[in-house]
């Protein structure tokens, strides 16, 4: 595994945001060709540490950091990401940093040019014209091929599904020759399991070529599978730094949270009442870029947790987005027997539907506003809650006290790590932002809740918490839940029935107890003999099955 002197050594790094300490005396080393798995709970400081390594401006803007970072034995202190790139560090951020109006090719190749030289527009433009398009495309295609995935080199980023965006970013980073150290902050969070497998293989190949890799993930099995060494962060400090030998997922999880985590699968037979059909969808089509739906039909029963799975790009995400009116849609949707007009977000919300979007930074959050606003806004607008009368009812103001109380409740309920309800949403770590999105939907007290990728980017402890909260919500309030997720295991552990989407339609519906292989067959487009009457429902056979 490379030479003996470390490529990277992080020495006594500490960082606080206005007095809130998020990293304390962090030390670790990394050799060339080594893969370091960095794990920790939401808000443990992983992203912050990587931002320090990469010279991100937020760090300097919030007062810099203490301690040092040595690359190849020399102390470095990058003034900007460009310096870090010059020094051979590549980074795939937890949040995308692609240019939406550019194609896959342009993003992969152009950014690389920009990294080499200057960022000056004039220079940039010159280089553009000096490059010929065919060569650019060739380079991009070879990078994509190296990843081993299928990406359209001419697709615009703004029209891509999230999984493709992730691969585009990774392709951009691995395509740079100089890269010595590659940092990946939760690269697999938005990928399906098979896509993630491809990525892990690629990373191993890169490491064998001598590139050192820091890999951050909440999918601990990936870390166990891939990493040479594992560093566990808890509350900003390194609690474990050990070679990956005989380490189990359970071990890591307990180091992360500082107590042992039970990997139980709660039995779902807990006296819930599943009633009659509440939501009926027939021939739904949705024009959502990258996730088109074409003729999906299914029905959901009152009080049930209905799962929707499938590979990325097949349309599972399009279903809730279409029903909630966020993308152009058509077909028949009825809720409690009444038709839900499509393409009308307000009516959908007023009918008692709510949605936790998979795109939390784009659609889910008001990043520049406080948590209070984020949690209570939709309920205020749709249901007139959290307003108080002024001047004898003439005018109604925001009831900030009530908003604060509500937010505080959810902060406690969902264990959201923040400095308080007034903190800005953008200052929260990725996983905690996800919890805020859930809180927003819960605050609506909906009759039916769509949750799209609810556990994307959140740690093991929090994942259980979120899934339990969803289940509890379902049980206590009888809220019907439709959960869309890329993680089959998650769907199987929570849902009463799981539908698999393939090519824009429902390929089949299975009970959670069905064999994983059966799900796999549905996903691959083959309809197995067993899939049909789902969850022992006699009317399940009526579900439209597409050829």
């Amino acid at each position, binding site marked *: 595994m490379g030479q003996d002197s470390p490529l990277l050594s992080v020495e006594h790094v500490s960082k606080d945001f206005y007095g809130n300490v998020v990293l304390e005396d962090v030390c670790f080393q990394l050799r060339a060709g080594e893969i370091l798995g960095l794990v920790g709970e939401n808000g443990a400081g992983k992203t912050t540490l990587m931002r320090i390594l990469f010279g991100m401006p937020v760090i300097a803007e919030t007062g810099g950091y203490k301690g040092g970072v040595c690359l190849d034995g020399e102390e470095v202190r990058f003034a900007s990401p460009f310096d870090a790139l010059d020094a051979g560090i590549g980074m795939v951020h937890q949040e995308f940093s692609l240019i939406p109006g550019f194609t896959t090719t342009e993003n992969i190749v152009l950014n690389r040019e920009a990294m080499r030289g200057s960022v000056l527009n004039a220079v940039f433009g010159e280089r553009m014209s000096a490059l010929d398009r065919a060569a650019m495309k060739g380079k991009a295609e070879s990078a994509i091929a190296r990843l081993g995935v299928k990406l359209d080199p001419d697709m615009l980023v703004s029209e891509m599904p999230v999984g493709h965006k992730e691969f585009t970013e990774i392709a951009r980073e691995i395509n740079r020759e100089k890269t010595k150290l590659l940092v990946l902050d939760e690269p697999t969070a938005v990928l399906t399991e098979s896509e993630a497998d491809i990525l892990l293989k690629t990373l191993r190949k890169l490491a064998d070529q001598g590139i050192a890799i820091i890999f951050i993930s909440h999918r601990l099995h990936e870390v166990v599978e891939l990493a040479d060494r594992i560093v566990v962060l808890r509350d900003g400090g390194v609690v474990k730094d050990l070679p990956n030998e005989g380490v189990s997922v359970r071990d890591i999880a307990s180091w992360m949270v500082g107590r042992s985590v039970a990997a139980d699968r709660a039995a779902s037979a807990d006296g819930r009442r599943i009633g009659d059909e509440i939501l009926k969808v027939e021939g739904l089509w949705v024009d959502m870029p990258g996730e088109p739906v074409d003729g999906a039909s299914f029905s959901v029963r009152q009080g049930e947790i209905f799962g929707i799975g499938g590979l990325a790009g097949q349309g599972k995400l399009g279903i809730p987005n279409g029903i909630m009116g966020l993308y152009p849609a058509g077909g028949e949707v009825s809720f409690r027997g009444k038709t839900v007009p499509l393409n009308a977000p*307000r009516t959908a919300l007023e009918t008692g539907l709510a949605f936790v979007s998979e795109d939390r930074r*784009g659609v*889910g959050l*008001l990043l*520049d*506003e406080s948590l209070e606003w984020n949690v209570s806004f939709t309920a205020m*607008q*749709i249901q007139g809650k959290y307003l108080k009368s002024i001047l004898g009812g003439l005018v109604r*103001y925001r009831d900030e006290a009530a908003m604060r109380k509500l937010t505080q409740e959810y902060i406690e309920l969902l264990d959201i790590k923040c400095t308080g309800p007034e903190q800005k949403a953008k200052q929260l770590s990725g996983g905690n932002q996800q919890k805020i999105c859930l809180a927003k939907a819960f605050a609506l007290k909906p009759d039916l809740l769509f949750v799209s990728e609810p556990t994307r980017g959140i740690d093991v402890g929090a994942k259980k918490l979120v899934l339990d909260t969803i289940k509890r919500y379902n049980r206590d309030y009888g809220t019907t839940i439709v959960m869309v997720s890329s993680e089959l295991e998650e769907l199987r552990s929570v849902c009463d029935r799981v539908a698999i989407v393939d090519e824009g339609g429902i390929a089949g519906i299975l009970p959670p107890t069905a064999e994983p292989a059966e799900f796999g067959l549905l996903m691959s487009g083959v309809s197995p003999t067993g899939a049909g009457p789902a969850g022992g429902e006699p009317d399940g056979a009526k579900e439209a099955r597409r050829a």
Partner: protein
Amino acid sequence: MPDLKQTVAEFGWPRVIIFLFLVALFVLAPFVGVRLDDSLTNVLNRFGQNAVFVLAMVPMIQSGCGLNFGLSLGIIAGLLGGILSGQLGLAGAAGFFGAIALASPFAVLLGLGYGKLLNKVKGEEMTIAMYVGFASVMFMCIMWLVLPFSNPTMIWGYGGKGLRTTISVEKFYRGVLNNFLMIKAGEHLRIPTGTLLFDALCAYLMWGFLKTRTGTAVTAVGSNPDYARASGLSVDRMRTVSVVISTFLGAVGILVYQQSYGFMQLYGAPLQMPFAAVAAILIGGASVNKASMLNVILGTFLFQGLLTMTPSVINAALQTDMSEVVRLIVSNGIIVYALTRKTRVAK
């Protein structure tokens, strides 16, 4: 001293520097023969005249339409209201409030159209707004000539047709607000209490509006339109609401300005006014997508203070009249500085 440094950083270096500069000017003034009470009266007057214009920037900034470079549209509505009120022979408080009432329908209609246009050009609002402002002022240059007004104090003496470039409001509503409860101290110090109270009332109403459900929605639309849409709001509607309010405040603003300044200025005059308001709110610490009442008050005070004090002190010190040049350099310099610093929309 990290605490002091942090406080200053939050307040913003540019504001601190301008504030210190202003203090220096006040300290310097008596030495070059500029009376302090005179200066103070001037600054307060100009603050009173301009605060509503600056306030007019707030709703559109909050809704994500950016800085209202097309404020001239509202100013035109206000001018129409003022002229109509004069034509009808209204005077005093009735003249002033009558003018606001008469200006309102114009402001609302123009605002609706302007809002609709801005909704079609999302992302380019500020450029288009600037064109709208210029075009409307030019169009009105023709209209002022051909509109059939007949009050002899308002039309050209010769020919008996077309409105004058400057019309005295002495007989209409001059000083309606300024003289209300005016505080006179000594020979020179005059505090235009009424105007300041009226400004405060407008600011209070705006503050209140931003706390209502609609106001909250407007802010959310500016913060993240996709979020707002997913929350069931019509993004275009909220943006239009903000544009109408801004245009209406432009109309009120020009009337407040006139009653204090003493003249209506037609033709090319409304062209430059939006820039001063833009500069003031930027100095006040607003960004292109967030503005507060504090930004308005601080910005108006700092900008108008600078604009009043710099020329008078420099003129007195250098014994030449460079006031116009200095004024132009200061105000445009600030706009350029502020725009280069603040146009990065955080998203």
